[in-house]
């Protein structure tokens, strides 16, 4: 029913859609692919030898190589200045690039200008489908790897990804260059398919077509672009095949179909298929091998708690988990009693607001330090300065031997700082397990290239990472929910996943920003036990919490902030009885 060229165009569309998928998986909206494809098409058409002399295979190889290189190089050059842009701003910048390329091609001599240039046709449906398969293979293998998860994490929550230790800039650029290379391959193929290329082939509408194909197919599942490309290419063919009257009705129906897919299948056509849903959790039997008893144990009947089979109540054998399963790299441990982090005279002003005023704070290895104070006292600002998210206005900061002011967030994380956020920042559409695996970014090895080659070591590494992540989930008592999407969990469970994700990085300093918010008393008590057990493993913990009871029970030392200044610091008993604290925070005895 379909002609050769229909098959050919389905494959080409799929490849082009993949170039959009390449960046959409990392949460980037780029329309520059048309420009990359145009540059690649013209360059390869000029550089590739005449197939009549060199043979089709040689011409095709040279053209493809040229296209991929040109596309990738153009993406690097465009990516370096634009990778800081987000969302629609990136879309506009890349669109501007594509338009500039089009204008250049229209006005250049060697391109034949608007009148285009002739190119021999050598691409057959077989060649196109083989290449589509190669591209699809790349993205299929990329998905469940450290690299693939890092991209997904950036897409879901960039800030959390950075705090997890993912170098967001490098990963975004890598995704962008991948898009450039794939669209370059598409451009070269298109040139040697169409017989005749003109700048109109790579105009704004073509970029939109590519984007629509990627989104309609499904921009988070590796085979989505194939479905999207096939869908958009075949709709006119099907309409013709069923003998639908030509004219406005066909584009109208095609538009309606598109609308229906987007409305009822926001995940794209790929969501009709069950495959490709993230990393598979360990089965219960496998998991039991990795399981110690968890510290954050749910009491019976705790709402949102883990299932009854997760573990019996009470036992607290924290440490056995981490001892039994080693991540690939253990982080350098800090000697007991060494200074882990120090704030000296730190202040922070937001305009005229003094969020912090001359705060001194010192954390020593193995300590649990509580940071409390009324709302707006500057606790979260303190944490943000420690983790490198916010530069202080004055004072000195040192964390694990580095200066977070001058260090990118992911390097602060790499030094051993892990944190949770006041409002849980999970990678919502990823599974709980994938969230924690993304958290293990710093302690696992890259597996993408080895997975491409099916090296067994990649599978072992991936499996070890899953075991490690599962252990972290066990430890916070939520391993039975590993397969659920993180965004579907209750608030209390989300906080626990966040802690597991932070633990997965095997940090030296763990900063918990109001971890008990949204938890009931039973859960909060279990959380307290977990925190204590973590500290006994040598982890240093900074705990920000409104549940004063929890802080008093758990912490070795407590620092109290009020209006940005430290009003008391010392052991729990000292702080509890401190008159300023009583007045400013706990209320007066008079009532």
């Amino acid at each position: 029913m379909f002609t050769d060229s229909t098959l050919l165009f389905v494959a080409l569309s799929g490849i082009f859609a993949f170039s959009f998928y390449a960046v959409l998986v990392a949460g980037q909206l780029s329309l520059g692919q048309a420009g990359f494809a145009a540059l690649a098409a013209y360059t390869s058409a000029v550089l590739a030898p005449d197939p009549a002399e060199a043979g089709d295979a040689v011409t095709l190889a040279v053209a493809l190589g040229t296209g991929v290189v040109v596309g990738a190089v153009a993406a690097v050059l465009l990516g370096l200045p634009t990778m800081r842009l987000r969302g629609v701003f990136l879309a506009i910048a890349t669109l501007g690039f594509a338009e500039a390329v089009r204008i250049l091609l229209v006005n250049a001599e060697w391109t034949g200008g608007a009148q285009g240039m002739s190119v021999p046709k050598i691409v057959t449906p077989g060649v196109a489908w083989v290449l589509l398969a190669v591209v699809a293979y790349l993205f299929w293998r990329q998905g469940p790897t450290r690299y693939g998860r890092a991209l997904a994490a950036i897409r879901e929550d960039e800030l959390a990804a950075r705090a997890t230790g993912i170098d967001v800039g490098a990963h975004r650029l890598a995704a962008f260059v991948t898009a450039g290379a794939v669209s370059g391959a598409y451009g070269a193929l298109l040139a040697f398919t169409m017989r005749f290329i003109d700048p109109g082939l790579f105009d704004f509408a073509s970029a939109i077509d590519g984007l629509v194909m990627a989104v309609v197919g499904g921009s988070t599942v590796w085979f989505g672009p194939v479905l999207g490309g096939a869908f958009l290419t075949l709709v006119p063919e099907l309409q013709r095949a069923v003998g639908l009257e030509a004219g406005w009705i066909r584009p109208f129906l095609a538009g309606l179909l598109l609308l229906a897919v987007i409305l009822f299948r926001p995940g794209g056509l790929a969501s009709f298929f069950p495959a490709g849903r993230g990393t598979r959790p360990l089965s219960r039997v496998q998991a039991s091998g990795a399981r110690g008893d968890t510290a954050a144990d749910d009491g019976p009947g705790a709402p949102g708690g883990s299932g009854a089979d997760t573990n019996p109540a009470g036992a607290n054998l924290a440490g056995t988990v981490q001892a039994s399963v080693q991540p690939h790299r253990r982080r350098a441990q800090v000697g007991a009693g060494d200074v882990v982090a120090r704030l000296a005279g730190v202040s922070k002003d937001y305009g005229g607001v003094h969020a912090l005023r001359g705060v001194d704070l010192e954390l020593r290895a193995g300590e649990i330090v509580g940071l409390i104070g009324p709302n707006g006292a500057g606790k979260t600002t303190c944490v943000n300065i420690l983790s490198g998210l916010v530069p202080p206005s004055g004072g000195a900061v040192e964390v694990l031997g580095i200066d977070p002011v001058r260090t990118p967030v992911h390097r602060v994380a790499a030094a051993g700082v892990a944190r949770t956020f006041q409002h849980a920042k999970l990678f919502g559409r990823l599974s709980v397990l994938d969230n924690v695996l993304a958290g293990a970014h710093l302690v696992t090895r890259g597996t993408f290239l080895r997975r491409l080659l099916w090296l067994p070591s990649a599978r072992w590494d991936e499996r070890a990472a899953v075991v490690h992540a599962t252990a972290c989930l066990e430890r916070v008592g939520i391993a039975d929910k590993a397969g659920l999407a993180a965004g579907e969990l209750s608030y209390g469970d989300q906080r626990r996943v966040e802690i597991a994700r932070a633990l997965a990085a095997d940090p030296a300093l763990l900063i918990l920003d109001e971890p008990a918010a949204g938890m009931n008393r039973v859960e909060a008590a279990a959380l307290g036990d977990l925190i204590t057990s973590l500290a006994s493993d040598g982890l240093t913990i900074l705990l920000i919490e409104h549940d004063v009871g929890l802080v008093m029970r758990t912490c070795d030392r407590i620092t109290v902030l009020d209006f940005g200044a430290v009003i008391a610091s010392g052991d729990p008993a000292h702080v509890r009885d401190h008159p300023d604290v009583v007045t400013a925070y706990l209320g007066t005895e008079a009532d």
Partner: protein
Amino acid sequence: MRRTAPLSLAMIALLGLSACGSGDTGAGGSLQGEGSGADCTIPGPVPVGAALSLTGAAGSYGESQRNGLELAAAHLNEQGGVTYELTVEDDQTDERQGITLFEQFTDDGVSAIIGPTLSTTAFQAQPIAQDAGVPVVAISNTADGITEQGEYIHRVSLTEGQVIPQTVAAVTESEDLENVVVMYSDDDAFTESGYEVFAQALEDEGVEVAETLTFSVADTDFRPLLTEAAKAEPDAVIVSALIEAAIPLVTQAREIGLDVPIVGGNGFNNPQLMTDAGEAAEGVVVGAAWNSAATQNELNTDFLAAYEAEYGKAPDQFAAQAYTGLMTIDAAVRAECSGEPEAIKDGLGTIDGLDTVLGSLTINDARDAEHEAVVQVVTDGEFVALD
């Protein structure tokens, strides 16, 4: 028009069993006829495919073309002897669809193909017919090189290279041109190639070009350019632009007091010019392959009447060229009295002085059409032949 330019070609295809051409078709009998010329009788209908841009950017041209083709098919089938099975398909002004359609037509074994509407698509799709040995008749492609793609590719549409020199010569004589300003959009294949022909024709006529100004196909504000043009005090302004730019350009030229004749290429050849530019369009000179009033012969009169009766409006040049396309194929079929692709191809080569609605039409050795162009000037809101 997003995809380059216009116009041009169509193909007619007759169905048979593809190039290898066994005598019978499943659909309706032999394509090998008896008799010759007007007496030729072919038992089966001759399948002809037409790939036109019925929707998308070039949709307005495609509609006229389809009307012209269907009218021609109706006339031919009424006349008898040889009947045609015309299949009109929409390429949605998309090159890929054009390629697919050509492939589908050749796979289905049509005897000839008409189209596609746009020159760009023609470059991409016609080689498929060439490779399959199916003759093509282009009905609206004006770009150079269309028929150079192979011996099976023909056209009945005049190229800009044929129309523009005639236009320039006529205007030079009637207006005593000495000094002109040339304006064109440089990012469109059609208008750019039109400009090149204009420039050559002006040089040949010895007309001096005071200034050459360029703009983009999408531009709508020409006042700065026109002001600059006015400074050169030209005898005429020569413009190669599509109709979308032509209308504001002409309107704004009159606004700023630039009242010299404006000479346009084929892009101006559209009644919309008078509808939308109104008074300002008066005096605009446009070369064309056909004008409803200019070609005075019986065929043309009948065509006008039949088209009006069928579609309730006057035909434009695209309808006339499409009508001619199928009529020319019919002549080729009758020349050998065979509906086989090979015979049609040979027949097309013998077309010499065929009476058509476009006038006396010859297909030359380069497989391009030759007939007299019409130089028109807008007078009282109508295109009339320039005397």
